[in-house]
């Protein structure tokens, strides 16, 4: 993302709306500036700010007069008065920043917006997590901290070492150089993103083991982690298996996403269609 210094009037509105805090008013040039290393290309500034198209010279003059008179103008805080933002053409590897940060852009690998995975949201039609299995979504960087891929790699390598199954229809899995080792391709390791989800699946019996592994790796990363645990309910809509394990480990199950099972397969059958298999580490 770029801010046109010819247009910017240094009103400062954009400095508050950047989720990564990557925009600041440079005291030397007196214009808002993007710290390119911290910017994750989420487009929150470009997409979220409303835009006026005022004349920058007039706005700057008015601001100087108001400032001299110690008058505080109370403009709307979600407006760029001169439409100074312009997206840049992103090339590899920087383009992965946007893929993992701008939720409006569907992930190329899965066709899904947001973090790019359907998880148990479509479990009623996908059968991604069946009875006796547990699906984990281990998300890094959210909320508002961000993460670089070399931090995520610590988790993927630990999980691969334990021989878990990585979900194939997941954007992070597609960036693994080798699912057997959990290594992520080298050219993106230093790229910073808003967040990413490592998605794995294990038998219920391994639930506690996986959580303890997550706890172990969390201590080594410089970001926040959100853990989601997905399970298939029994025929009565109950979960008497996974919830007790989580509670035993000290978790309060305050919030959940509940798939209510109204989905069904409605696409016309395709003769050559083949269900993608999950990728097992070590296999």
């Amino acid at each position, binding site marked *: 993302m770029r801010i046109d210094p010819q247009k910017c009037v240094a009103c400062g509105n954009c400095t508050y709306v950047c989720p990564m805090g990557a925009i600041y008013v440079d005291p030397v040039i007196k214009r808002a500036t993007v710290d390119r290393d911290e910017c994750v290309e*989420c487009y929150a500034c470009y997409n979220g700010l409303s835009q006026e198209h005022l004349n920058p010279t007039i706005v700057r003059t008015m601001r100087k007069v108001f400032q001299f008179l110690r008058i505080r103008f109370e403009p709307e805080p979600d407006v760029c008065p001169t439409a100074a933002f312009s997206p840049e053409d992103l090339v590899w590897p920087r383009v992965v920043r946007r893929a993992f940060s701008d939720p409006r852009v569907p992930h190329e690998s899965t066709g899904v917006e947001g973090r790019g995975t359907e998880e148990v949201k479509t479990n009623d039609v996908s059968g991604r997590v069946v009875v006796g299995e547990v699906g984990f979504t281990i998300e890094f960087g959210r*909320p508002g901290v961000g993460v670089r891929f070399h931090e995520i790699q610590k988790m993927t390598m630990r999980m691969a070492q334990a021989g878990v199954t990585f979900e194939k229809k997941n954007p992070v899995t597609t960036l693994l150089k080798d699912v057997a080792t959990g290594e992520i391709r080298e050219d993106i390791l230093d790229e910073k993103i808003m967040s990413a*989800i490592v998605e794995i699946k294990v038998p219920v019996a391994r639930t506690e083991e996986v959580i303890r592994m997550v706890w172990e790796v969390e201590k080594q990363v410089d970001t926040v982690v959100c*853990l989601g645990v997905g399970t298939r309910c029994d025929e009565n809509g109950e979960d008497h298996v996974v919830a007790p394990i989580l509670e035993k480990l000290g978790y309060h199950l305050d919030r959940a996403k509940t798939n*209510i099972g109204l989905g069904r397969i409605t696409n016309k059958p395709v003769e050559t269609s083949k269900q993608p298999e999950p990728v097992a580490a070590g296999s």
Partner: protein
Amino acid sequence: MTNTLHRFGSAESFRDDFIVFAIASRGKNEEEALPKLRRFLEMAIPFGPVNLGDARHGGALRPCKELNPSAHWNRDMTPDFQEVVKGLDHITTVAAVFDSRVKAEEFVKKVKEADMGLSINISTSVDGAEQCCHAAGINRHSVGYSLGFEGKTERLPNSQVLTLMTMCGHGMVASSLAKKMIDWVKEGRRTPEEAVTYMSRFCSCGVFNPARAIRVLEDSRHHTK
């Protein structure tokens, strides 16, 4: 759209936060899904949602790329639900946000009757979703539990800022904007109703809950946690 899962707060704090969303699965039921998704949104309107949105265009309040400067004094802050329905032009996740369990329950009953074949999820407290399912005579299919935030939690802001910013789980509501809005409400520079509209416009899939946000801002006026 894991974005609704990891909202910050206790189960009790989700008493006015019920998100019902519809999603089609690639290769399973996305063919002909667009009119069904549009119908889902249309069906929600009579039940009084506090927000409605899709994952491509955002919620019922959206930024304007050609804002008239008079907006600084006279800005339309009315959510336009019909515009959300009309604007849906891609197969994507669509969501309706309710501030009461009763409204969500009634809507879920209606969605069940409609039998569209899309995957429907309820994101709220575990108990709240169970009650909605019970009221609609539905057995839960699958559950995705949020275990909250771990790791370097010292890098997170205070609980009120966290509550506001996690109402857009994709992280489009910046912590500094949420903090600024809390400060502005405390200073009397904006009402909570005005402050939530600014934050709401940044949420890119329309799951920001303005009713819950107003409650948080009213609370923060008296004490910052």
